[in-house]
């Protein structure tokens, strides 16, 4: 049978980043909804509160993004290894992982990917996180910075195509992040127990099951 082995999967800076980021993004989604639809989402008292909270949360996300970036790029120096899919991942890994999520998972087979600190994510996660962390989050943050400085940065905004295009971009990217959030939280419950992935994100330690023959987890 399987025996438990603990591995230190999520270092402290990553955990701090992640929960700051999660809190920030959820706040941004909700306040953003109020800012765009003030008649329908009067959650934070008045409009001004929503804006101040939104701007603050944006600031928190930008800071936590820097923690994340700084840690992976300069301290752990594992950003490329962890986040960039390898040729192998692209050629067969993604398919293999998709097959697991959409077919063999239901049959009770085992996850073909076993996380280790050096190879934390399965190929699908890698691609998704890469898109989120290197495209979506930076773009939303940049457009947000422009939007909080419309007057001084007007020249730049016009280079982007104008305030409306920038606003549309910010809005649609934000919707994408919100969509990611649903999928992300759901996928995180697909561990061998529903909370198996949440625990390491909180404590840092993952319970890896050393199993050699039995095809499925508990």
């Amino acid at each position, binding site marked *: 049978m399987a025996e438990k082995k603990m591995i230190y999967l999520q270092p402290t800076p990553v955990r701090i980043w992640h929960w700051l980021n999660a809190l920030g993004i959820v706040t941004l989604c909700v306040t953003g909804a109020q800012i*765009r639809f003030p008649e329908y989402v009067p959650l934070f008292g008045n409009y001004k509160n929503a804006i101040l909270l939104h701007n603050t949360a944006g600031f928190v996300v930008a800071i936590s993004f820097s923690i994340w970036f700084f840690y992976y790029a300069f301290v752990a120096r594992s950003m490329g290894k962890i986040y960039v899919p390898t040729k192998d991942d692209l050629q067969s890994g993604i398919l293999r992982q998709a097959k697991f999520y959409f077919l063999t998972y239901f049959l009770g087979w085992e996850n073909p990917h076993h996380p280790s600190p050096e190879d934390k994510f399965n190929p699908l996660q890698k691609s998704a996180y890469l898109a989120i962390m290197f495209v979506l989050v930076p773009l939303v943050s940049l457009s947000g910075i422009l939007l909080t400085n419309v007057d001084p940065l007007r020249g730049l905004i*016009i280079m982007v195509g104008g305030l409306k295009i920038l606003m549309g971009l910010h809005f649609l990217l934000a919707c994408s992040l919100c969509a990611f959030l649903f*999928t992300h939280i759901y996928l995180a419950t697909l561990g061998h127990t529903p909370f198996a992935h949440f625990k390491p994100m909180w404590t840092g330690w993952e319970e890896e099951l050393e199993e050699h023959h039995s095809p499925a987890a508990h």
Partner: protein
Amino acid sequence: MKNASKPRFMWLCILLVLLFPLGALAMDSEECQGCHGDIDSVGEDLYINEAAYGHTAHSGMGCMACHEEVSDEHPDDGASISASSCSDCHEEVETEYMASAHAENATCGDCHNPHTALGLADVSGHDMNQQCSNCHENTDVVESHADWLPQADLHVAKLPCISCHTGSEDYVIILHIIQKESEAAFGDFEISKHQDLQALAGDKKVQSLVDLNSDNFISLAELRTFNRNPDYKSMRLQATMTPKEASHSVKTLDNRWDCSFCHTSGTENMQTSFLALPNDEGTFSRIEVEEGAVLHALTGTPDFYMMGTTRSASLNIIGLLIIIGGTLMPIGHGTLRFLTRKNRKH
């Protein structure tokens, strides 16, 4: 409103001309301007700029309408000349303004020069704010408003003060053509001058730059053509929210604290927009723009967006679809996961 009063004015002038046969009682405006229109003969303080004066509604009345007591001996008699009070003719405005607390701070003449006074539709928001900045220094206003107003610099730069500080109830969107003052990427934009636009229009009227078929109405298609024309790349449309009618109840209204007075899906009038084109004398003429210009997702007014107010419905739908897309995984996968839960029990 202005157009309606023009004919009335002409009659007033004719009446005045009939009542005061030229030269019989006193000098006419032209004579006055012989001296007062010449800065060298009267000096700066007594100079009346003929061009600026000529475009005011007041000019139609003649100098004597307000300076009744000018004698034939003027200026040699040294007699001081009276000037009628604004309230003689603008009773309603006077009553409204005198009831405001601001009446203690400024008189009509502090904000208006009777020799250059123009109507609401003839001036840009910037011109209006010029009147206030004589006493309320712009940097001070930005600083004090920033205490409570997000993006105070933007609000103060783009909105007429009277949009927040008078009891106006209805607003219209006014579009101006602006252009960069220098080639620098962060160069300031200023409202295009008549000469600049005329140079682009060539021998056609300035209006034809945007109003392609010159029907005094700008359709969304015309607006889009203007926005996309690479020849006009240096120009952008800027918009602001101006009271539909000028009110003089100068004060701080409670509901202007509430951002959603403006930032909420627009009232009827917020759908009404005009393009204000500069005339060669520095005033503006308004041309109506088809409804929905500020709401259009990308093209109508690319540089004008009021949060909560001018959101585009089509983008809302795309956004919603994206979010729904994000819930498909939890819902679809979750259902199958539930149905096949036995397979994972060993």
